[in-house]
């Protein structure tokens, strides 16, 4: 695995993503997702909203780093907020 040049932060991110996906799969097994419409105006289930939320979070982080020198922790907080808002009300 040395050729993959792992670092602790990237490993933690991928472990987090894997746990998130496993958690969603287990949740889906015990409580199947139901599609509904939120403020995104399209029919989504919780998996769709997670995907849209994560992509939106990536956009927030990329946009932030492109335009401002403010702390990336603040950007991360905004990105998490966007993901949560989309996950709950999207």
């Amino acid at each position, binding site marked *: 695995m040395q*050729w*993959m*040049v792992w670092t602790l932060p*990237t490993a933690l991110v991928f472990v987090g993503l894997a746990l998130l996906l496993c958690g969603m799969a287990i949740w889906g097994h015990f409580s199947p997702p139901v599609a509904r419409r939120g403020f995104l105006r399209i029919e989504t289930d919780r998996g769709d909203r997670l*995907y849209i939320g994560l*992509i939106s979070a990536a956009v927030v982080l990329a946009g932030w*780093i*492109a335009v401002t020198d403010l702390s990336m922790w603040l950007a991360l907080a905004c990105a998490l907020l966007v993901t949560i808002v989309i996950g709950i009300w999207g």
Partner: protein
Amino acid sequence: MTEQSVTVAGSPVGGEIVTGAAPQDGTPDSRVSVKPKNNRAWLLVLPVVVSVAFTAVIPLMTVVNFSVQDIFSPDDRIFVGLEWFRSVARDPEIRAAFVRTLLFSAQVLLLEIPLGVALAVAMPRRGVWVSVALVIVALPLLIPWNVVGTIWQIFARADIGLGGWTINNVLGIDFNYTLDSTDAWITVLIMDIWHWTPLVALLAYAGLRSIPDPYFQAAQIDGASAWSTFRHIQLPRLRGVLTIAILLRFMDSFMIYTEPFVVTGGGPGNATSFLSILLSKVAVGQFDLGPAGAFSLLYFLVVQIVSYVFFTVLTRSGR
């Protein structure tokens, strides 16, 4: 009625699949529910998961690892955090290439989709000419990308190329794609249209052929014009294939590399330096794995977003 479960032996998924109250008197009972009891079908997906992991997920994870480090060798590397993302996102040359590539993809979609559909509508529906038309339309798709580039590099030349010579000497228009950035852009765009409109045409043709004849007979009885038939019968039933065509053409045009690299090499100046050409310079030319990793991930993000938006709009707009 007594509550009991019904076992269906030999079902494709095996085991007990029906639970609930079984009707005793042969009448349908709305309380009977179907509930799969095992997830054996997931095993069938396993080969795809393994192959995608090896060809896409693991390489992508490696690129993520590259993007946060300055790598001299596997043993000699420095963690730099998000520094490469910052420099890539703020690089004016990359930003210009991003706008250029988006503009190119928009032009490709605006021209190739209507042209492909028009070609498909004009193709014969039955008879011996069907095969002839299909072979002729499919020909450009059979040519390797670098050969397409070489063909157009020579064809568009003002001195020895038939196309370039005709434009200069017959039409009297000053055309030189090696010196003029607009000419270079037009050459690359027309080359892409020539190469890939057939794909749209073939997909649209397959979609048109799947429309049953009674639709057209009903339109004829109602006295519908050719345009009305197209607008209200053919076009709505092309939604599925056009979704695929738009997605394929967007992703391909947004990642275009070989043809412009062969024809113009990204020039004159930076006129046809698309994102992929710039990325290959950083990754393969300079072997700067860190910036190339950050560049690739931002590139990947844009492709993800646009593809998802297209897919969602086209597949869910009818619901």
